[in-house]
């Protein structure tokens, strides 16, 4: 399985957090909240398209609610496959950081 990029990880995590409220605007807001930075709409949709192609998330038209605006929204939901990839990424991260000291310097150790 291909490793997830940081970007994809952020998206998947954001979608997971949002639960059944995950649509474009909310996802973008969540990401900005998680990372503390700005993100373009273009990037949001391009990444979402990629994630769908990889089957990490599924999209569905929102028509459950009485809210009229809601009907046109597209909701995203993380798949089982996506969740596993995310866990893989976490494992990798953990093992990566395991022996890395917080006070690491560029000085050569003797």
């Amino acid at each position: 399985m291909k490793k997830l990029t940081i970007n994809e990880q952020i998206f998947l995590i954001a979608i997971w957090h949002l639960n059944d409220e995950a649509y474009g605007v909310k996802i973008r807001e969540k990401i900005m909240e998680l990372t503390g930075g700005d993100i373009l709409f273009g990037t949001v949709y391009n990444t979402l398209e990629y994630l769908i192609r990889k089957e990490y998330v599924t999209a569905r038209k929102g028509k459950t609610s009485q809210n009229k605006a809601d009907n046109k929204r597209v909701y995203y939901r993380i798949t089982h496959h996506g969740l596993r990839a995310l866990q893989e990424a976490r494992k990798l991260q953990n093992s990566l950081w395991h022996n890395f000291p917080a006070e690491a310097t560029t000085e050569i150790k003797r």
Partner: protein
Amino acid sequence: MSPRSTGRPPRVAEIILSRLYDYSRRYGMLSDLREVHASLCLTHGRRKADLWYWRQCLGALPKYLSYCLAWKTTMLRNHFRIWLRILYRNKTYGFINILGLAVGMTCTILILLWVQYETSYEKFHTNADDIYLIAWERLANNRHYSSTPYPLAERLEAEFSDFTRIVRIKPRERHIIKHQDKVFIEEQTIAADPSLFAMFTFPFLLGESDNALVDPNTIVLTESTAQKYFGDGESLGRLLEVDGVPLEVCGVVRDVPDNSEIRFNLITRFKDLRKVKEYQDPLRWNYFAFHTFVQVKPGIDPLDINPRLTVAMDRYRSWLPSGERDFYLFPLKKLHLYELAGGGLIRYVYLFSFAAIFILVISCINFVNLSTAQSAQRAKEVGIRKVIGSDRRLLLGQFLGESFLYALFSLGIAIVLILFTLPAFNNLVQKNLRFEYLDAGFIIGLLAIFLLTVILAGSYPAVYLSAIQPVKTLRGAFRIEGRGMFRQVLVVIQFVISILLIICTLVVLKQLRFMKHADLGFDEENLLSLPLTQSMSIRVQTIKARLSQHPSIVKVTASAPTNHGGLFRWEGMDPDLSYLENEIWFKMVDHDYFDTLGAEIIAGRSFLKERVSDFRDGFIVNQEAVKLMRLESPVDKALHLVGTDGTIIGVVKNIHAGYKENLHAEVYYLRPLTQWDRYAALDIRIEAGEIPNAMASIEEVWKEFNPDRPFEYAFHDAEIDKKYRQEEQTSRIFGYFAFVSIFVSCLGLSGLVGYAAAQRTKEIGIRKILGAASSEIIVLLNKNFLKSVLLANVLAWPMGWFVMREWLLAYPYRTDLHIGYFVAAAAIAAVIALLTVSIQAVRAATSDPVSALRHE
């Protein structure tokens, strides 16, 4: 809706966005953006929100474009590659297609250049739209005249307030111009009113238009005339001797452009020269030698002026009884293309334009035929493309694109061809056309021709090929439906056009020959005309005697210029015929005039030198005069001509300069009847083959009398030939057109037959194995195409007959439309088509059947 409300985002931006991203709906982008927009409306106001939306929208553009480019060009590249492969695989077809289109385009573009040139006349004048020529029609015989008498302009000025300016021009003056040792006869000089330069835009190089020709004894030269006399030196203010009068150069204008009907190399004032002064008597209403141009004030309809003009002119009765003429304004811009009475060069503009379009159509038909004939080869490709997911629109685009490429390629070749053929074409039409790449009108014309070709040639094949159904083509062998009916029809159209052009060529040639070999009433060969200068005219008899002594000169005679119109009565005249006063031409001649010209006296006798009465009151009339005067036995009838009573002593066969013009009633006499009756020319009959000898001695005599004047002469036969230049040109152009159209048609036919033979390779093979002779197979392949040619004849004959009858109507004397020309045209077309088809058919028929049937 208040500005703070949560309105919808800008509509245009939303539409753009939804177009850019076809997945925008799928991923809910539009609804998301709308939501953000709405919330921004609440927090930052509507304006800010809209701005933000627009930024999102435009920010998406660059990425979208690069995306398009990458994907769309992939298909384009594929189409281009396929086109190249097909071209490479079928070199013959590609060659025929491209050559045909290129030749068609070349013809059309050349004609476009010519038409553009012919229609550009006078447009360079700033006021061209407002300038009109005063013309009139004589109602008795419906003849139109462009020349008016001198006093007309003054009357117009006094009685009409509709004109800004009125300018008189006396064209075709001849002057002897002298400067130091340079003496030339300037043929193309005009006399004009000073306001000429305010009305017409002839740019001044030296001097100013405002005061040109205002002061007495001044002239204006063109650039090249100034160069001729003064070299590179200063010409302004210098003196030129015009007919012996020194005149000062007050201005130099740029040479008159080729596309001007008003031509001059020197302009004099009306009042300066004695010769010019003669005809500006304010009361001389009967000297029609001037062109009167008026510039109409803006906002005035010239049609409004016409009736008033006629009424006003009726007051000047000294010239024609009222009610017998109609005045009208004729637009300057029409002067070149239209004749006053209708017709004119415009007929040729239409004729040639049609011919050019016909040739373009022929070459497009070739393209259509060959492309559809080839459809079997493309059928698999179309099938597979459709199966993979190409829709019809995409395929249409592909095939139209191919036609576009063919046309583009052909256009390139056509432009090269034009560069090579333009000098020859210029020679043909006697024009100086240039290939102006950057001229807007030309580029538009070129583009129009190009697009017309793409649409004519490309649309049918594209529709046809893109309609092919994949199921049919991929399951088994594809068969062309309809057995090529459509293609047969197109071939028939091609041959109709070709045959039509051949008929036109033959008839035009015949008319030309008819006019050239017309009986002119005199023997025009070896006959030289020598103008008599003043110093010569007083010693005519001496000169005649001296010249006739020369062994190579047979006879010499003298004549005065022909007069037109004057009091004319005869014995037993029908009062209805009084209109002949205006129609009669009369000419003073020497007694040996008819003898020298070789004119035949058909009744009575010629002038006799010994008979004093002949000199005093003898008249000889021509056949036409007898006809118009309705005389049964003209000889010995009493005749009155401009103040002289006499008798008709003989009738001469019509002497004229060819059948292009109407005949005139003419009267000849020996004694001067008017003040203009002065001998002005000698006609010299030279022994055949002795022209150089005779010329030498004539020049010697000339030099003796005119030491400072160049030797001038004209041969009658050459002058007559000049008159047929237009017809000669037309016949030649038609000849080339006919050749090109036949050539292109045969090119296409050859391709079609070759293709048909290839399609039927197996059939031919089997037939041969079963014992068919080669000749039978040739007949088999020929049959269909011959049928088309025959059908084309049936259609082309009536069309040709109709068109050519119309064309011939313009000539007063015309040849009749003989069936022979139609048969000849048919035969030419049939033989050429037969040859073309047979060459291909023979190749197919003589091929080895084994090689055709081996692979199964």
